[in-house]
């Protein structure tokens, strides 16, 4: 698969590569503008001259971001929330995806459709019922009130994505395993799980981003204990209605994007080879 298969003739390939690089430049330009905004000295963002560089790069905006109370704590909390959500939803979705692809049972199709429907619910509308639920669970003001809803909201998509990967593992392998005397649990965790791991990595990207960037739940459920707050909340400080601090917003967003990019680069290889499994039949 690593062979340059299907690569077109030279002039066409060069044209295609030029096209790819041009697209990359266009796509990256808003990102560049964001990072640039973070380094601009005070007042330059609002000035009339949209120069694509800055004459006096300044770290002031970053200082304001880092200068916030407990910034490191928020960062850690965000990592914990995103990490737990990724792992828990991955495992739960793996089990569920195995059930709906490798077994035939009543209500199977109904369930699949239910999983799909679950995603169509507008999140804002659910905040109030979820609030009372979290209160009754005693999870208000803890990271649990962020983790639990995020697991629930990332599960349906994860199950749908993982179905393809589980399906791709040949039936024959399962038969062979049982013939060798493997128990169902052994097959599940020692044979099937490693095989769909790339797929799990792929779906984890989605849950990671949604948990990492969300602030609706953090705004609503973390009430009295700010030490349980997450990174996006630190960003919100800069959106002052009368006098937004754009430099701070850009610096904060740059800092928020970096961990996601790092995560992407780490899983990138797996992601590409992993997602492919969904169509190998």
């Amino acid at each position, binding site marked *: 698969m690593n062979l340059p298969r299907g690569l077109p003739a030279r002039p066409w390939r060069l044209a295609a590569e030029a096209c790819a690089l041009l697209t990359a430049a266009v796509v990256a330009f808003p990102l560049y503008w964001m990072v640039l905004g973070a380094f601009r000295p005070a*007042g330059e963002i609002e000035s*009339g001259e949209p120069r694509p560089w800055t004459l006096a790069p300044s770290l002031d905006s970053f200082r304001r971001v880092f200068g916030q*109370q407990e910034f490191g704590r928020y960062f850690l909390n965000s990592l914990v929330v995103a990490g737990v959500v990724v792992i828990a939803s991955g495992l739960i979705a793996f089990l569920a995806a195995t059930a709906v692809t490798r077994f035939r049972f009543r209500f199977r199709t109904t369930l699949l459709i239910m999983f799909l429907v679950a995603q169509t619910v507008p999140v804002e509308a659910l905040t109030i019922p979820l609030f009372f639920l979290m209160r009754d669970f005693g999870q*208000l003001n803890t990271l649990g009130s962020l983790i639990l809803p995020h697991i629930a909201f990332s599960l349906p998509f994860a199950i749908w994505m993982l179905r393809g990967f589980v399906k791709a593992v040949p039936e024959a392998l399962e038969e062979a395993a049982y013939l060798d005397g493997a128990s169902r649990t052994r097959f599940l965790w020692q044979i099937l799980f490693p095989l769909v791991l790339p797929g799990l990595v792929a779906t984890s990207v989605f849950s990671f981003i949604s948990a990492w960037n969300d*602030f609706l739940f953090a705004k609503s459920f973390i009430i*009295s204990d*700010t030490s349980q707050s997450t990174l996006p909340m630190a960003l*919100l400080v800069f*959106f002052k209605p009368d*006098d937004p601090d754009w430099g701070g917003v850009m610096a904060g967003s740059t800092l928020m994007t970096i961990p996601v990019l790092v995560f992407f680069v780490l899983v990138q290889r797996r992601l590409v080879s992993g997602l492919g499994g969904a169509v190998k039949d």
Partner: protein
Amino acid sequence: MKLPVRLAALAAAALVATACTPQTSSNSASDTDDQSGTLRVWLFQEVGNTPKEKVVDSVVTAFAKAHKGTKVDVEYIPIDTRAQRVKAAFNDPKSAPDLMEYGNTDTAGHVHDGGLLDVTDAFGAWPEAKDTDPTARTSVTVDGKVYGAPFYVGVRALYYRTDVFEELGLAVPTTLAELATTARTIRAAEPGLYGLVVGGAYTYGAMPFVWANGGELAAGKDGSYTSGIDSAAARKGIEQYTSLFSADNCPPAKCAGMGGNDTVTAFAAGKAGMAIGGDFSHTAVEAGAVKGKYAVVPLPGVTAGSIAPAFAGGNNIGVLKSTSHRTLAVELMKALASKKTQASLFDAMGFLPTFTDVRDRAAAKEPFVKPFVQTLAAGTEFVPASPAWSQIDSQLVLPTMLQEVISGRKSVTAASTDAAKKMNDAFGSAG
């Protein structure tokens, strides 16, 4: 597998616990009034928050020293999260603080939602309260009862470019009509500048025109309001404001969508001859290209020498109904909103004091705030003290009205009639 099992049990319990009506929270006033313990306070987190923290810290330390066995825990919450935070605090009294800072347009809504404690007696008996400016007092009052102490006020005035005025030989306008002609003169001479930069989504920039012409947002008292935005006087003000959106002052294509902050940004960047900005916009303008090239005067009214009534924004400090430290909380409220604290907060953050005497002293010390103090002294206006206001505000009734006129979709008469209808619907349903 332990977690799922526990969750299943909890879910079952929740199902049983809730009958067939949506859940509500019993947020009744607490019976206990502890004389010691920890008081929790929510204040807004400003971008440069450290000076505010310093002032508050000294107040809090003195308070804890004066009241044995008490501790004060102050939390600074981002302004952008306040709506959710406050609702959550009302829903879950256990998480609620004892005191909080809140925007003064939210007073009636918070009272209606059962969140604030009636402190009428304590406020009346507080000697310093007699110097509270009347509009600030209005902003903590609902149906004749007081629900907090004013913390600071914010008010808008006219920023103008001294260099442009000098170059064109212009005088500072003394009436709203002159304001319009001056604006057009600037634009004609300097096509790169807006004359007076205005915004279609800038409600509090538009309202002074309505008020100066004798119009009102709404009339009525004690819970029942009727919109006044479709009165002849109000329409005159709307007409006067929206006529500023034209190619010879501020082209609709660019100005119709602007909010207050956008107009200040444009002025700070040197793109406008004049702008209506707040005392709180000072920092942004100082950081911009026009530093040292501008001055501020009160926004003129209809007749020469008069000042157009401005909207008196700002924040209050209130005690939450669910507090179990009622007496202490009220004491702390007075300490945080006292003359002394407000004077230090002015020095630290530039927040305009709500006491007339403290404000006058501030103006003497810092000439910049003088036009704002003059504006306040000339009399200000406030939004209707009705819980419906938050609905009217979030449904963008007034910006929509202005934009309908500016973009030529509707006449002033039609747009204001529709807006009045929407306002009355809100007043009716919130009653």
